[in-house]
């Protein structure tokens, strides 16, 4: 008898909760006339960002490509005259991309970032193949301050050995001092 009453109460409470939702504000928006709010960390279209100095952040390390579970990123490394590594080509096949964000997690330079833009419908599937010029944006994206080369020990034009963060002056091997 007690069990019966208990289950009846449970039923009524459930119905009450469902009915209660009739009076809450609707989450559905009239897309596309009305745009929903998407957080900056929403995982949509992928971009390649630039560091605060306006240089390409991507160093073509291939970590995004290897992290990609669908293998939709392909790139080739090259070296600039100033010593920076860069991607000679950088291709994302968005017809395969599942917007999982693994590439962003893997990126050691904050170069590759996902953006809140998800509106990527195309009539031609080939239009979903983005090359570097389609991916590269001018700003630093979500991470305003990070500049890989200021931290890394690699020498580039304008930053000699010993000039990165937390680096001592290069050692003079010929010195006899302890």
């Amino acid at each position, binding site marked *: 008898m007690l069990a019966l009453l208990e289950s009846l109460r449970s039923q009524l409470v459930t119905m009450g909760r469902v009915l209660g939702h009739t009076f809450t504000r609707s989450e559905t928006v009239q897309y596309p006339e009305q745009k929903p709010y998407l957080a900056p960390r929403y995982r949509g279209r992928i971009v390649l960002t630039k560091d605060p100095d306006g240089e390409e952040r991507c*160093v*073509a*390390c*291939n*970590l995004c*490509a*290897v992290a*990609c579970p*669908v*293998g*939709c*990123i*392909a*790139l*080739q*490394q*090259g*070296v600039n005259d100033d010593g920076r*590594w860069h991607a000679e080509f950088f*291709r*994302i*096949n968005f*017809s*395969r991309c599942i917007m999982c964000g693994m590439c962003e997690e893997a990126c*050691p*330079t904050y170069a590759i970032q996902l953006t809140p833009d998800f509106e990527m419908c195309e009539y031609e*599937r*080939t239009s*979903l*193949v983005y*090359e570097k010029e389609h991916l590269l944006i001018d700003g630093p994206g979500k991470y305003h301050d990070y500049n*890989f080369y200021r*931290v*890394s*020990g*690699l*020498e580039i034009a304008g930053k000699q*050995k*010993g000039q*990165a963060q*937390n*680096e*001592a*002056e*290069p*050692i*003079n*091997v*010929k*010195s006899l001092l*302890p």
Partner: protein
Amino acid sequence: MATISIDGKHYEVEDGSNVLEAVLGLGLDLPYFCWHPALGSVGSCRQCALLQFQNADDDRGRIVMGCMTQVTDGMLLSLSDSRAKAFRADVIEALMTNHPHDCPVCAEGGECHLQDMTVMSGHRDRRYNGLKNTHVNQDLGPLIHHEMNRCIACYRCVRYYQDYAGGTDLAALGSHDHVYFGRHEDGTLESEFAGNLVEVCPTGVFTDKSLVHDYTRKWDLQSAPSICTACGVGCNTIPGERYGRLKRIHNRYHHEVNGYFLCDRGRFGGGWVNSERRLRQAGAQMSDGCFAPLTQEQAVQRLQTLCGADSKLWGIGSPRASLESNWMLRSLVGDEHYCPGFGPEQDALRAVMTALTEGGVATATLPEIEAADLVIIVGEDITQSAPRIALALRQSVRNLGLEQAANLGVQHWQDAAVRNIAQNTRSPLVEWVSASTRLADVATKTLTLAPTDIARMGFALAAALDEGAGVDGLTADQTTHVVQLASRVLGAKRPLIVSGCSSHDASVVYAAQALAAAVARRHAATRVVYTVPECNSVGVGLLKGTHKDLADVVAAAEAGHIDTLVVLENDLYRRMKKEWVTRLAAAVPNIVVLDALETSTCDAAQLVLPVASFTEAEGTLVNAEGRAQRFYPVVSDVGERLPGWQWLRLAAVGRANRSDLETLMHLDQVLEAIAAEQPQLDGIRAAAPDASYRDRVGLKAARQPHRYSGRTAMYADKTLHEPKTPVDEDAPLSFSMEGESHALPSALRSFVWDPGWNSNQSLHKFQAEIGGALKGGSAGIRLIEPKGQPAPGAYSVPAAFEPPLSGWYLTAQYRIFGSEEMSAHAPGILAVSAGPTLILSADDALQLALAADDGVTLITADGSVDCEVTVDPALPKGTVGFVVGHAHLLDLRAGETVSLEKKPGLMRRSEVIASDGVRVYG
């Protein structure tokens, strides 16, 4: 065997080895840096720490270094004890304090031993807040990139470079945390084996410069087992490919051929396959001398017309083409119309073939070379002609010191102790050569003699050992030397005779064979090494039949017996004098050239067909010891190119008498046909598994690591329909990441990788014992085993060398960089191969009154040529050496008499190869 206990489990291990080696051999993980299986232990990095207990009651134990502790029976050890783990974590944390946070821009990343060991030891966050030490990099030349900040001071590089490879220009400089590994100043590393630093360095201090500038991570490289084509040693390699380009060549371990190391020509010389001079499309020469491109179909039609039923067909094969291609050509034209296409080394090579097959003395494997306790080098600058053998010979001279150490109870792997005991003690290594060599620093005696005198020394020593008649007319010094050496030979246990084709003089090889036979009668353990100039010289030499020489081909052409001449992967200008090629071209109505690179011979051809290179085709090569080894394509998209044998198979369609060739669609069928026709080559089928090989789940072996990335984007710019995995019907390997990569026959291993071991240090997971054979068996198969008693062969002592009354006697001198045809097109090799092409003795330079920047005009019967000169004080009087293989010296022949004139102010860089616009990294 000893029984040791690790963490309470009992294991059987080799007595006398060190604990680290034993632990790794058991398949357990213990991080290490400074130990290397080929370099032994010095205990400098302190990373392989583990706990040793005195007895079962000892629960405290003590930290010992695995690499410095000898295995003893009943030893109690712990790898997983928290104190050992904490010690290892502390060590790696200390090693990492100055590491420069540049893995994303490091060409070692992803196959970095330091990354692996850091993860294995559990270090993650840098706690040290002080400033990081930094170093300025050096420019180490066009082959090696230097990034000193990444160094963890394990000392492997200098131990390899100085102690193992005999280099003198890389050292540990400075002290304490200022220690710096580099040269005294910027400059190209002098050692011919410097490239191994790329694999020896456990981090990214030394990396492959061409790879740094066109980088692909190890996990993205499509690889296949391959064989180096840069000389006759046949080192096993792993070429790595991405986007259709060869990115790098790494060593593929074969304990009997090349062990852990390659020479720089092998490592950096494969770049020619990316050259702008590669033939990409078939072409037919038009009346204006230009070539009209043909499709593959048109080319085949054209080829079939030229090789039609009533056409008188001749063929010139090539010692740098695969056995299959040569055999197919020989079958197409008939053996009486086939010429193997050997160059000036032909007589010496024939002598080597006789010595190999009938000499009755076994050829040394790599461990046997390293174990030799007496080496006699007969007329061969081995560092230039078969570099990997020279590196092994450098190890052989250590044997006396190792023996001394063993007598004191010091194990061979105690590297520092052994070298301390040995000091400058060296096993005898005697060189009889025609110019100074790079082995002189470890040689007991280097005699520089003219080639005929070298032969006389060989015969004299052979006679001394056989108590025979001897050789008349030796100088007093030479006689003393022979007598002394004879007694040393009698005292030796494992003597080794090294000779080869480099002198282009058959008498030198005859002498070596006679000497080897005489020594072998005294010691059953006698071994020989004969070098040959090209990757398949021996393979082509093993083909039996009534083959013709190039001179016969020219004669036949001029007699009008040739309608069509098929030239297979051979630049005739490198084989015979220009005038002869011109005569041949004029006399033959149709010449078909099949080659991978555009050569001068192509200009004489009516039809040029593009041939797949060693990275694009499968084939078999037979190395200088007679070992047949298979190479497999790493590139799937070969465009219009076909393997040489495929073109020739298609050519056979119209030949009524050889229409059977047409049915040989697959390599395995070709191999079977070769074996059926040439019983001495029967073994080639067993050199590697055939195309029907499947692993335990029914798949072929994988060419791609399981992390191969970008599959759905690599070709998305061309098509969104992801292409089907290319099918390789000929090979037991697939162009895919699916398939076995562990339990494989060694001949099919495309890369080494094991969980937690991303670098090539994972090799020990695939070895049956550390430094020994691979679990998957020995790749390749020896076709030549010694038969019968040691035979002295052709025993004709040449007359003593007399300097020409007027002029100079030419001797052939090989150079590791530049003498070999194909590798000279690789950008890195091109950059280091420039240099003087003529070698003069000091007296002659004085006689010609040459100043430092003067050159010489060399005058022969065929004409004259200006050469840059280097002076070699040891050069025998009356001789002048020329560098083989340089474009403007191709018409010179060893043994010719030439005259020289001073050419003031000549500082011309040698024209090895016209630059083809390929970027040279400097």
